[in-house]
Protein backbone atom coordinates (compact mmCIF):
# COMPACT_ATOMS: atom_id res chain seq x y z
CA UNK A 1 0.00 0.00 0.00
CA UNK A 2 1.53 3.26 -1.13
CA UNK A 3 0.17 6.54 0.23
CA UNK A 4 0.93 9.54 -1.92
CA UNK A 5 0.59 13.26 -1.33
CA UNK A 6 0.54 15.27 -4.56
CA UNK A 7 0.82 19.08 -4.63
CA UNK A 8 -0.82 21.25 -7.30
CA UNK A 9 -0.97 25.01 -7.74
CA UNK A 10 -3.83 27.00 -9.25
CA UNK A 11 -2.26 29.21 -11.93
CA UNK A 12 -3.64 31.49 -14.65
CA UNK A 13 -4.04 29.74 -17.99
CA UNK A 14 -1.55 31.72 -20.03
CA UNK A 15 -2.07 29.79 -23.30
CA UNK A 16 -3.40 32.79 -25.17
CA UNK A 17 -2.45 36.08 -23.57
CA UNK A 18 -0.63 37.17 -20.43
CA UNK A 19 -2.03 40.06 -18.41
CA UNK A 20 -0.72 41.30 -15.04
CA UNK A 21 -2.82 42.08 -11.98
CA UNK A 22 -3.23 45.84 -11.26
CA UNK A 23 -0.66 45.64 -8.41
CA UNK A 24 1.83 43.91 -10.76
CA UNK A 25 2.44 41.11 -8.29
CA UNK A 26 1.07 38.24 -10.36
CA UNK A 27 -0.26 37.09 -13.71
CA UNK A 28 -4.01 37.77 -13.90
CA UNK A 29 -6.14 34.79 -14.87
CA UNK A 30 -9.57 36.34 -14.48
CA UNK A 31 -10.13 36.54 -18.23
CA UNK A 32 -8.35 33.40 -19.41
CA UNK A 33 -9.26 31.03 -16.57
CA UNK A 34 -7.10 28.84 -14.37
CA UNK A 35 -5.29 25.55 -14.64
CA UNK A 36 -2.35 23.63 -13.15
CA UNK A 37 1.04 23.01 -14.75
CA UNK A 38 1.39 20.04 -17.15
CA UNK A 39 4.08 18.70 -14.80
CA UNK A 40 1.55 18.61 -11.97
CA UNK A 41 -1.03 16.89 -14.19
CA UNK A 42 1.54 14.13 -14.64
CA UNK A 43 2.26 14.08 -10.90
CA UNK A 44 -1.47 13.58 -10.21
CA UNK A 45 -1.59 10.78 -12.79
CA UNK A 46 1.37 9.04 -11.14
CA UNK A 47 -0.19 9.46 -7.69
CA UNK A 48 -3.48 7.93 -8.86
CA UNK A 49 -1.73 5.05 -10.62
CA UNK A 50 0.43 4.21 -7.60
CA UNK A 51 -2.44 4.44 -5.13
CA UNK A 52 -4.80 2.39 -7.31
CA UNK A 53 -2.23 -0.32 -7.99
CA UNK A 54 -1.37 -0.75 -4.30
CA UNK A 55 -4.69 -0.02 -2.63
CA UNK A 56 -3.26 3.14 -1.08
CA UNK A 57 -4.49 6.71 -0.89
CA UNK A 58 -3.74 9.59 -3.23
CA UNK A 59 -4.22 12.88 -1.42
CA UNK A 60 -4.07 16.11 -3.39
CA UNK A 61 -2.97 19.32 -1.67
CA UNK A 62 -2.99 22.94 -2.67
CA UNK A 63 -2.17 26.22 -0.98
CA UNK A 64 -4.23 28.97 -2.49
CA UNK A 65 -7.33 31.16 -2.32
CA UNK A 66 -10.85 29.76 -1.86
CA UNK A 67 -11.26 29.30 -5.63
CA UNK A 68 -8.39 26.77 -5.68
CA UNK A 69 -10.90 24.14 -4.59
CA UNK A 70 -11.64 23.93 -8.35
CA UNK A 71 -8.18 22.42 -8.95
CA UNK A 72 -8.65 20.02 -6.01
CA UNK A 73 -12.06 18.89 -7.39
CA UNK A 74 -10.46 18.29 -10.77
CA UNK A 75 -7.79 16.07 -9.19
CA UNK A 76 -10.44 14.22 -7.18
CA UNK A 77 -12.38 13.62 -10.41
CA UNK A 78 -9.25 11.99 -11.83
CA UNK A 79 -9.05 9.51 -8.96
CA UNK A 80 -7.42 11.23 -5.99
CA UNK A 81 -9.06 9.92 -2.84
CA UNK A 82 -8.70 12.91 -0.49
CA UNK A 83 -7.94 16.62 -0.69
CA UNK A 84 -6.34 19.22 1.58
CA UNK A 85 -6.77 22.94 1.03
CA UNK A 86 -4.46 25.32 2.87
CA UNK A 87 -6.50 28.48 2.40
CA UNK A 88 -4.15 31.40 1.83
CA UNK A 89 -3.25 33.99 -0.76
CA UNK A 90 -0.58 32.12 -2.71
CA UNK A 91 0.81 35.40 -4.12
CA UNK A 92 2.05 36.44 -0.66
CA UNK A 93 3.62 33.03 0.01
CA UNK A 94 7.17 32.54 -1.22
CA UNK A 95 8.61 29.12 -2.14
CA UNK A 96 10.02 28.57 1.36
CA UNK A 97 6.62 29.41 2.88
CA UNK A 98 4.80 26.96 0.61
CA UNK A 99 7.34 24.23 1.42
CA UNK A 100 6.88 24.86 5.14
CA UNK A 101 3.09 24.66 4.84
CA UNK A 102 3.16 21.41 2.84
CA UNK A 103 5.56 19.99 5.44
CA UNK A 104 3.18 21.04 8.24
CA UNK A 105 0.32 19.12 6.61
CA UNK A 106 2.48 16.04 5.98
CA UNK A 107 3.64 16.02 9.62
CA UNK A 108 0.12 16.54 10.99
CA UNK A 109 -1.17 13.62 8.92
CA UNK A 110 1.72 11.47 10.04
CA UNK A 111 0.81 12.22 13.66
CA UNK A 112 -2.72 11.03 12.83
CA UNK A 113 -1.29 7.77 11.53
CA UNK A 114 -1.73 8.75 7.86
CA UNK A 115 1.91 9.31 6.92
CA UNK A 116 2.96 9.51 3.28
CA UNK A 117 5.38 7.21 1.48
CA UNK A 118 5.79 9.66 -1.36
CA UNK A 119 5.26 13.36 -1.83
CA UNK A 120 5.02 14.39 -5.49
CA UNK A 121 5.25 17.94 -6.83
CA UNK A 122 5.76 19.54 -10.21
CA UNK A 123 9.32 20.36 -11.27
CA UNK A 124 8.35 24.03 -11.51
CA UNK A 125 5.12 26.00 -11.18
CA UNK A 126 3.73 27.41 -14.44
CA UNK A 127 3.40 30.98 -13.17
CA UNK A 128 6.25 31.83 -10.75
CA UNK A 129 8.66 29.18 -12.10
CA UNK A 130 10.73 29.06 -8.92
CA UNK A 131 12.06 25.50 -9.46
CA UNK A 132 12.52 24.87 -5.73
CA UNK A 133 9.45 24.08 -3.60
CA UNK A 134 10.00 20.31 -3.82
CA UNK A 135 13.62 20.55 -2.78
CA UNK A 136 12.87 22.92 0.09
CA UNK A 137 10.09 20.58 1.20
CA UNK A 138 12.52 17.65 1.29
CA UNK A 139 14.81 19.58 3.64
CA UNK A 140 11.86 20.65 5.79
CA UNK A 141 10.83 17.00 6.16
CA UNK A 142 14.39 15.65 6.35
CA UNK A 143 13.72 13.36 3.36
CA UNK A 144 15.65 12.53 0.19
CA UNK A 145 14.44 14.12 -3.05
CA UNK A 146 14.79 13.25 -6.71
CA UNK A 147 14.20 16.01 -9.22
CA UNK A 148 12.84 15.96 -12.75
CA UNK A 149 11.34 12.46 -12.55
CA UNK A 150 9.36 11.20 -15.53
CA UNK A 151 8.30 7.76 -14.23
CA UNK A 152 8.56 5.90 -10.94
CA UNK A 153 7.80 2.52 -9.44
CA UNK A 154 7.57 1.45 -5.81
CA UNK A 155 8.40 -2.06 -4.66
CA UNK A 156 9.36 -3.38 -1.21
CA UNK A 157 9.76 0.08 0.24
CA UNK A 158 12.12 1.19 -2.53
CA UNK A 159 11.32 3.78 -5.17
CA UNK A 160 12.89 3.52 -8.63
CA UNK A 161 12.75 6.99 -10.09
CA UNK A 162 13.58 7.47 -13.76
CA UNK A 163 15.08 10.74 -14.93
CA UNK A 164 16.01 11.84 -18.44
CA UNK A 165 19.43 13.22 -17.46
CA UNK A 166 21.85 15.33 -19.48
CA UNK A 167 23.70 12.21 -20.73
CA UNK A 168 20.78 9.84 -21.03
CA UNK A 169 18.47 7.73 -18.86
CA UNK A 170 19.23 7.66 -15.13
CA UNK A 171 17.65 5.68 -12.33
CA UNK A 172 17.63 6.54 -8.64
CA UNK A 173 16.81 3.85 -6.07
CA UNK A 174 15.64 5.55 -2.91
CA UNK A 175 13.85 4.16 0.15
CA UNK A 176 10.44 5.55 1.10
CA UNK A 177 9.46 8.02 2.43
CA UNK A 178 10.81 10.41 -0.20
CA UNK A 179 9.96 13.47 -2.26
CA UNK A 180 9.97 13.57 -6.08
CA UNK A 181 9.42 16.44 -8.47
CA UNK A 182 7.81 15.38 -11.74
CA UNK A 183 8.43 16.45 -15.33
CA UNK A 184 5.84 16.17 -18.07
CA UNK A 185 6.36 13.33 -20.55
CA UNK A 186 6.63 10.03 -18.66
CA UNK A 187 2.92 9.32 -18.24
CA UNK A 188 -0.21 10.44 -20.04
CA UNK A 189 -2.69 12.16 -17.76
CA UNK A 190 -6.16 10.59 -18.02
CA UNK A 191 -9.33 12.51 -18.67
CA UNK A 192 -11.96 12.72 -15.94
CA UNK A 193 -14.95 10.42 -16.33
CA UNK A 194 -18.49 11.46 -15.50
CA UNK A 195 -18.46 8.87 -12.73
CA UNK A 196 -15.24 10.38 -11.41
CA UNK A 197 -16.76 13.85 -11.41
CA UNK A 198 -19.82 12.65 -9.49
CA UNK A 199 -17.70 10.77 -6.94
CA UNK A 200 -15.45 13.81 -6.50
CA UNK A 201 -18.40 15.94 -5.41
CA UNK A 202 -19.01 13.69 -2.42
CA UNK A 203 -15.48 13.91 -1.01
CA UNK A 204 -15.08 16.50 1.71
CA UNK A 205 -12.06 18.77 1.29
CA UNK A 206 -9.99 19.19 4.47
CA UNK A 207 -9.57 22.94 4.91
CA UNK A 208 -6.70 24.26 6.98
CA UNK A 209 -5.32 27.63 7.94
CA UNK A 210 -1.61 28.26 7.28
CA UNK A 211 0.63 27.16 10.14
CA UNK A 212 2.41 30.52 10.23
CA UNK A 213 2.76 33.95 8.68
CA UNK A 214 4.54 33.99 5.31
CA UNK A 215 8.07 35.35 4.95
CA UNK A 216 7.10 36.15 1.36
CA UNK A 217 8.99 35.99 -1.87
CA UNK A 218 11.72 38.45 -2.86
CA UNK A 219 9.53 39.81 -5.63
CA UNK A 220 9.52 43.55 -6.21
CA UNK A 221 7.16 43.50 -9.16
CA UNK A 222 6.35 41.90 -12.46
CA UNK A 223 6.40 43.51 -15.87
CA UNK A 224 5.68 42.42 -19.39
CA UNK A 225 8.50 42.47 -21.91
CA UNK A 226 7.90 45.15 -24.57
CA UNK A 227 6.10 43.74 -27.61
CA UNK A 228 8.51 43.25 -30.49
CA UNK A 229 7.29 44.85 -33.73
CA UNK A 230 6.59 42.31 -36.45
CA UNK A 231 9.35 42.13 -39.05
CA UNK A 232 8.03 39.18 -40.95
CA UNK A 233 8.76 38.90 -44.64
CA UNK A 234 6.03 36.94 -46.43
CA UNK A 235 7.75 34.70 -48.98
CA UNK A 236 4.54 33.74 -50.72
CA UNK A 237 1.26 31.86 -50.60
CA UNK A 238 0.74 28.12 -50.90
CA UNK A 239 2.91 25.58 -52.76
CA UNK A 240 4.04 28.19 -55.29
CA UNK A 241 6.28 29.55 -52.53
CA UNK A 242 8.43 26.40 -52.56
CA UNK A 243 11.05 27.99 -54.82
CA UNK A 244 11.39 31.01 -52.53
CA UNK A 245 11.69 28.72 -49.51
CA UNK A 246 14.51 26.68 -51.03
CA UNK A 247 16.21 29.93 -52.10
CA UNK A 248 16.12 30.92 -48.42
CA UNK A 249 17.64 27.55 -47.41
CA UNK A 250 20.48 28.22 -49.83
CA UNK A 251 20.97 31.76 -48.54
CA UNK A 252 21.14 30.44 -44.96
CA UNK A 253 23.42 27.61 -46.02
CA UNK A 254 21.28 24.87 -44.49
CA UNK A 255 21.20 22.60 -47.53
Amino acid at each position, binding site marked *: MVNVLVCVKRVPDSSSQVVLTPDEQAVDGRMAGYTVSPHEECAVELAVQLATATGGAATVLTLGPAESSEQLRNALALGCTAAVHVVADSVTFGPADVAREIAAVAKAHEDDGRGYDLVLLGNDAA*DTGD*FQVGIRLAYALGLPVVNGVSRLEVADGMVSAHVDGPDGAETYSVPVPMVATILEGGVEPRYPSLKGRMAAKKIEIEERAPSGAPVGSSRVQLRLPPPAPSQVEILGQGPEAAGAIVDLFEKLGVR
Partner: protein
Amino acid sequence: MILLWLECDAAGVTDISLETIAFARSLSAAGGGIAIRAALVGDVPEAAHDQLAAHGVAEVHHVSGPAYDAYSGAAWASALQDIRARTKCVVVAAAGSPRGMEVMAHLAARLDVPMAANVVAFSGLSPFEVTRQVAGGAALEEMRLGQRPAVFTVAGHSWVAATADAPTSPTWHEESPEVAEADLVARVSARGETKEEGPGALTTARVVVGAGRGAGGPDGFDGVIELAGLLDGALGVSRVVTSLGWRPHNEQVGQTGSRISPELYIPCGISGAIQHWAGCSSSKTILAINTDDEAPMVTKAHYAVIGDMHEVVPAVVEELKRRGR
Protein backbone atom coordinates in the same frame (compact mmCIF):
# COMPACT_ATOMS: atom_id res chain seq x y z
CA MET B 1 33.73 37.00 -4.81
CA ILE B 2 31.50 35.13 -7.21
CA LEU B 3 31.26 31.34 -7.15
CA LEU B 4 29.91 29.60 -10.24
CA TRP B 5 28.93 25.96 -10.48
CA LEU B 6 29.74 24.92 -14.03
CA GLU B 7 28.74 21.86 -16.01
CA CYS B 8 30.83 19.94 -18.54
CA ASP B 9 30.01 17.47 -21.27
CA ALA B 10 32.50 15.38 -23.26
CA ALA B 11 33.53 18.40 -25.36
CA GLY B 12 34.22 20.76 -22.45
CA VAL B 13 32.30 23.34 -20.43
CA THR B 14 28.68 23.44 -21.70
CA ASP B 15 27.55 26.46 -23.74
CA ILE B 16 24.98 27.47 -21.17
CA SER B 17 27.67 27.39 -18.46
CA LEU B 18 29.90 29.61 -20.63
CA GLU B 19 26.96 32.03 -20.94
CA THR B 20 26.76 32.03 -17.16
CA ILE B 21 30.44 33.00 -16.96
CA ALA B 22 29.72 35.91 -19.33
CA PHE B 23 26.95 37.08 -17.00
CA ALA B 24 29.30 36.75 -14.02
CA ARG B 25 32.01 38.80 -15.77
CA SER B 26 29.53 41.60 -16.31
CA LEU B 27 28.57 41.42 -12.63
CA SER B 28 32.24 41.35 -11.68
CA ALA B 29 32.95 44.45 -13.77
CA ALA B 30 30.03 46.33 -12.21
CA GLY B 31 31.42 45.44 -8.78
CA GLY B 32 34.89 46.76 -9.61
CA GLY B 33 36.50 43.53 -10.75
CA ILE B 34 35.37 40.92 -8.25
CA ALA B 35 37.17 37.61 -8.89
CA ILE B 36 35.26 34.71 -10.39
CA ARG B 37 35.70 31.25 -8.92
CA ALA B 38 34.40 28.15 -10.61
CA ALA B 39 33.45 24.86 -9.03
CA LEU B 40 33.31 21.72 -11.17
CA VAL B 41 32.26 18.33 -9.87
CA GLY B 42 33.25 14.99 -11.37
CA ASP B 43 34.92 14.39 -14.73
CA VAL B 44 36.45 17.45 -16.36
CA PRO B 45 37.60 17.11 -19.98
CA GLU B 46 40.97 18.53 -20.96
CA ALA B 47 39.39 21.27 -23.11
CA ALA B 48 37.81 22.84 -20.02
CA HIS B 49 41.22 24.06 -18.79
CA ASP B 50 41.72 26.36 -21.78
CA GLN B 51 38.09 27.40 -21.82
CA LEU B 52 38.11 28.54 -18.19
CA ALA B 53 41.25 30.59 -18.85
CA ALA B 54 39.84 32.13 -22.02
CA HIS B 55 36.62 33.04 -20.24
CA GLY B 56 38.36 34.80 -17.37
CA VAL B 57 37.91 32.47 -14.39
CA ALA B 58 40.46 33.23 -11.64
CA GLU B 59 40.27 30.11 -9.45
CA VAL B 60 38.93 26.63 -10.05
CA HIS B 61 37.76 24.17 -7.41
CA HIS B 62 37.66 20.70 -8.89
CA VAL B 63 35.67 18.35 -6.68
CA SER B 64 36.06 14.60 -7.16
CA GLY B 65 36.24 11.37 -5.20
CA PRO B 66 34.03 8.33 -4.60
CA ALA B 67 31.23 10.38 -3.06
CA TYR B 68 30.98 12.41 -6.25
CA ASP B 69 31.23 9.68 -8.88
CA ALA B 70 27.48 9.52 -9.36
CA TYR B 71 25.29 12.61 -9.46
CA SER B 72 23.42 13.62 -6.31
CA GLY B 73 21.90 17.10 -6.04
CA ALA B 74 22.31 17.13 -2.24
CA ALA B 75 25.92 15.91 -2.26
CA TRP B 76 27.02 18.29 -4.99
CA ALA B 77 25.34 21.20 -3.21
CA SER B 78 27.05 20.14 0.00
CA ALA B 79 30.44 20.46 -1.75
CA LEU B 80 29.50 23.91 -2.99
CA GLN B 81 28.34 24.90 0.46
CA ASP B 82 31.73 23.85 1.80
CA ILE B 83 33.65 25.84 -0.85
CA ARG B 84 31.46 28.89 -0.39
CA ALA B 85 31.98 28.80 3.41
CA ARG B 86 35.77 28.77 2.95
CA THR B 87 35.88 31.38 0.18
CA LYS B 88 33.18 33.67 1.60
CA CYS B 89 31.69 34.24 -1.85
CA VAL B 90 28.73 36.61 -1.74
CA VAL B 91 27.21 35.36 -4.99
CA VAL B 92 26.70 31.73 -6.01
CA ALA B 93 25.23 31.03 -9.43
CA ALA B 94 24.81 28.30 -12.03
CA ALA B 95 23.31 27.91 -15.47
CA GLY B 96 19.54 27.70 -15.80
CA SER B 97 19.80 24.05 -16.89
CA PRO B 98 17.84 21.31 -15.10
CA ARG B 99 20.91 20.44 -12.97
CA GLY B 100 21.81 24.08 -12.42
CA MET B 101 18.33 24.69 -11.05
CA GLU B 102 18.51 21.59 -8.89
CA VAL B 103 21.91 22.20 -7.36
CA MET B 104 21.16 25.88 -6.65
CA ALA B 105 17.80 25.00 -5.07
CA HIS B 106 19.56 22.49 -2.80
CA LEU B 107 22.18 25.06 -1.85
CA ALA B 108 19.58 27.76 -1.16
CA ALA B 109 17.51 25.38 0.94
CA ARG B 110 20.60 24.33 2.94
CA LEU B 111 21.62 27.94 3.55
CA ASP B 112 18.03 29.10 4.05
CA VAL B 113 18.36 31.95 1.56
CA PRO B 114 16.14 32.76 -1.45
CA MET B 115 16.97 31.47 -4.92
CA ALA B 116 16.13 33.30 -8.14
CA ALA B 117 15.58 31.00 -11.14
CA ASN B 118 16.21 32.07 -14.75
CA VAL B 119 17.86 35.44 -14.19
CA VAL B 120 18.41 37.47 -17.37
CA ALA B 121 19.94 40.68 -15.97
CA PHE B 122 20.89 42.56 -12.82
CA SER B 123 19.81 46.14 -12.24
CA GLY B 124 21.56 47.12 -9.01
CA LEU B 125 24.28 45.84 -6.69
CA SER B 126 23.20 47.19 -3.32
CA PRO B 127 20.56 46.16 -2.91
CA PHE B 128 21.26 43.36 -5.34
CA GLU B 129 18.37 43.34 -7.80
CA VAL B 130 17.88 40.92 -10.64
CA THR B 131 15.35 40.44 -13.42
CA ARG B 132 14.19 36.92 -14.14
CA GLN B 133 11.85 35.11 -16.48
CA VAL B 134 8.55 33.82 -15.12
CA ALA B 135 5.53 32.17 -16.77
CA GLY B 136 7.83 30.57 -19.33
CA GLY B 137 9.29 33.92 -20.30
CA ALA B 138 5.91 35.58 -20.88
CA ALA B 139 6.62 37.98 -18.00
CA LEU B 140 9.65 39.33 -16.18
CA GLU B 141 10.01 39.61 -12.42
CA GLU B 142 12.16 42.13 -10.57
CA MET B 143 13.56 40.41 -7.52
CA ARG B 144 15.61 41.77 -4.61
CA LEU B 145 18.16 39.28 -3.28
CA GLY B 146 18.93 40.87 0.07
CA GLN B 147 20.60 37.92 1.79
CA ARG B 148 24.17 36.66 1.39
CA PRO B 149 25.04 34.70 -0.53
CA ALA B 150 22.76 35.66 -3.38
CA VAL B 151 21.87 32.38 -5.10
CA PHE B 152 20.49 32.25 -8.64
CA THR B 153 20.56 30.59 -12.05
CA VAL B 154 21.11 32.37 -15.37
CA ALA B 155 18.50 31.74 -18.07
CA GLY B 156 19.81 29.98 -21.17
CA HIS B 157 20.44 32.14 -24.23
CA SER B 158 20.10 35.38 -22.28
CA TRP B 159 23.88 36.03 -22.50
CA VAL B 160 26.38 35.40 -25.26
CA ALA B 161 29.17 32.95 -24.39
CA ALA B 162 31.96 35.34 -25.44
CA THR B 163 35.53 34.95 -24.21
CA ALA B 164 37.01 37.50 -21.81
CA ASP B 165 39.02 40.54 -22.96
CA ALA B 166 41.64 39.57 -20.40
CA PRO B 167 42.29 35.81 -20.25
CA THR B 168 43.45 34.35 -16.92
CA SER B 169 45.64 31.48 -15.83
CA PRO B 170 43.38 30.00 -13.20
CA THR B 171 44.71 28.32 -10.06
CA TRP B 172 43.35 24.79 -9.70
CA HIS B 173 42.35 23.41 -6.31
CA GLU B 174 41.74 19.65 -6.22
CA GLU B 175 39.29 18.87 -3.43
CA SER B 176 37.10 16.17 -2.02
CA PRO B 177 34.92 17.69 0.70
CA GLU B 178 33.26 15.25 3.07
CA VAL B 179 29.62 14.41 2.48
CA ALA B 180 27.05 13.36 5.07
CA GLU B 181 25.42 9.94 4.50
CA ALA B 182 21.99 11.60 4.27
CA ASP B 183 23.12 13.59 1.25
CA LEU B 184 24.00 10.42 -0.64
CA VAL B 185 20.66 8.64 -0.30
CA ALA B 186 19.23 10.09 -3.52
CA ARG B 187 21.97 9.57 -6.09
CA VAL B 188 22.04 8.10 -9.57
CA SER B 189 22.33 4.35 -9.16
CA ALA B 190 22.02 3.18 -12.77
CA ARG B 191 22.41 4.76 -16.18
CA GLY B 192 21.03 3.82 -19.56
CA GLU B 193 23.03 4.06 -22.74
CA THR B 194 23.98 7.55 -23.90
CA LYS B 195 21.20 9.12 -25.84
CA GLU B 196 21.41 9.63 -29.58
CA GLU B 197 17.82 10.20 -30.56
CA GLY B 198 15.38 12.35 -28.63
CA PRO B 199 15.93 15.68 -26.95
CA GLY B 200 19.69 15.46 -27.44
CA ALA B 201 19.34 15.42 -31.21
CA LEU B 202 16.56 17.99 -31.10
CA THR B 203 18.43 20.51 -28.96
CA THR B 204 21.63 20.30 -30.98
CA ALA B 205 20.14 20.15 -34.52
CA ARG B 206 21.07 22.98 -36.91
CA VAL B 207 17.63 22.80 -38.49
CA VAL B 208 14.39 21.91 -36.72
CA VAL B 209 11.16 21.35 -38.62
CA GLY B 210 8.19 21.87 -36.31
CA ALA B 211 4.64 20.57 -36.56
CA GLY B 212 1.56 21.43 -34.55
CA ARG B 213 -2.17 20.85 -34.61
CA GLY B 214 -2.09 21.80 -38.28
CA ALA B 215 -0.60 18.35 -38.97
CA GLY B 216 -4.17 17.15 -38.59
CA GLY B 217 -3.54 13.75 -37.01
CA PRO B 218 -0.93 11.08 -36.28
CA ASP B 219 -0.56 10.42 -40.02
CA GLY B 220 0.11 14.05 -40.87
CA PHE B 221 3.86 14.04 -40.16
CA ASP B 222 5.33 12.24 -43.18
CA GLY B 223 6.02 15.47 -45.06
CA VAL B 224 7.71 17.29 -42.18
CA ILE B 225 9.77 14.22 -41.29
CA GLU B 226 10.96 13.92 -44.90
CA LEU B 227 11.80 17.62 -44.98
CA ALA B 228 13.73 17.35 -41.71
CA GLY B 229 15.66 14.41 -43.14
CA LEU B 230 16.60 16.30 -46.32
CA LEU B 231 17.90 19.19 -44.22
CA ASP B 232 19.78 16.91 -41.76
CA GLY B 233 17.46 18.31 -39.14
CA ALA B 234 15.21 17.10 -36.35
CA LEU B 235 11.45 17.11 -35.84
CA GLY B 236 9.99 19.28 -33.06
CA VAL B 237 6.31 19.41 -32.14
CA SER B 238 3.85 21.44 -30.07
CA ARG B 239 2.20 20.26 -26.89
CA VAL B 240 -1.13 19.76 -28.63
CA VAL B 241 0.62 17.11 -30.72
CA THR B 242 2.08 15.27 -27.73
CA SER B 243 -1.00 15.49 -25.55
CA LEU B 244 -3.15 14.09 -28.37
CA GLY B 245 -0.63 11.24 -28.53
CA TRP B 246 0.33 11.95 -32.17
CA ARG B 247 4.06 12.12 -31.38
CA PRO B 248 6.21 11.32 -28.30
CA HIS B 249 6.91 13.93 -25.66
CA ASN B 250 10.67 13.93 -26.27
CA GLU B 251 9.93 15.83 -29.48
CA GLN B 252 8.04 18.62 -27.70
CA VAL B 253 9.43 22.14 -27.92
CA GLY B 254 8.47 24.70 -25.30
CA GLN B 255 8.20 25.61 -21.65
CA THR B 256 7.55 22.02 -20.60
CA GLY B 257 9.52 20.45 -23.45
CA SER B 258 12.93 21.14 -24.98
CA ARG B 259 14.45 24.54 -25.62
CA ILE B 260 15.99 24.75 -29.05
CA SER B 261 18.27 27.30 -30.71
CA PRO B 262 18.88 26.08 -34.27
CA GLU B 263 20.11 28.13 -37.23
CA LEU B 264 16.67 27.64 -38.77
CA TYR B 265 13.33 26.67 -37.24
CA ILE B 266 10.41 25.90 -39.56
CA PRO B 267 7.19 25.69 -37.49
CA CYS B 268 4.36 24.27 -39.62
CA GLY B 269 0.78 24.51 -38.34
CA ILE B 270 1.91 25.86 -34.96
CA SER B 271 0.10 28.95 -33.66
CA GLY B 272 3.01 30.20 -31.54
CA ALA B 273 1.50 30.22 -28.03
CA ILE B 274 3.79 31.83 -25.47
CA GLN B 275 4.70 28.43 -23.97
CA HIS B 276 5.81 27.16 -27.36
CA TRP B 277 7.63 30.42 -28.08
CA ALA B 278 9.52 29.96 -24.79
CA GLY B 279 11.22 26.94 -26.32
CA CYS B 280 12.02 28.29 -29.80
CA SER B 281 12.57 32.03 -29.45
CA SER B 282 16.37 31.70 -29.56
CA SER B 283 16.30 30.19 -33.06
CA LYS B 284 18.49 32.32 -35.36
CA THR B 285 15.94 32.35 -38.16
CA ILE B 286 12.27 31.33 -38.07
CA LEU B 287 10.25 30.46 -41.16
CA ALA B 288 6.59 29.90 -40.31
CA ILE B 289 4.22 27.92 -42.52
CA ASN B 290 0.63 28.54 -41.49
CA THR B 291 -2.81 29.02 -43.03
CA ASP B 292 -3.46 32.01 -40.75
CA ASP B 293 -1.49 35.16 -41.57
CA GLU B 294 -2.37 36.55 -38.13
CA ALA B 295 -1.09 33.60 -36.08
CA PRO B 296 1.46 34.84 -33.48
CA MET B 297 4.05 32.48 -34.94
CA VAL B 298 3.67 34.22 -38.31
CA THR B 299 3.90 37.75 -36.96
CA LYS B 300 6.90 36.88 -34.76
CA ALA B 301 8.77 34.95 -37.47
CA HIS B 302 11.45 36.36 -39.77
CA TYR B 303 9.86 34.72 -42.82
CA ALA B 304 6.48 33.15 -43.45
CA VAL B 305 4.56 31.34 -46.11
CA ILE B 306 0.79 31.47 -45.87
CA GLY B 307 -0.70 28.17 -46.88
CA ASP B 308 -1.66 24.60 -46.02
CA MET B 309 1.36 22.72 -44.69
CA HIS B 310 0.14 19.59 -46.46
CA GLU B 311 0.59 21.40 -49.77
CA VAL B 312 3.57 23.63 -49.00
CA VAL B 313 5.83 21.03 -47.35
CA PRO B 314 5.58 18.41 -50.15
CA ALA B 315 6.25 21.17 -52.70
CA VAL B 316 9.40 22.18 -50.80
CA VAL B 317 10.52 18.53 -50.66
CA GLU B 318 10.02 18.27 -54.44
CA GLU B 319 11.92 21.48 -55.05
CA LEU B 320 14.82 20.32 -52.86
CA LYS B 321 14.98 17.04 -54.76
CA ARG B 322 14.76 18.86 -58.10
CA ARG B 323 17.74 21.00 -57.14
CA GLY B 324 19.70 17.88 -56.40
CA ARG B 325 19.27 17.00 -52.80
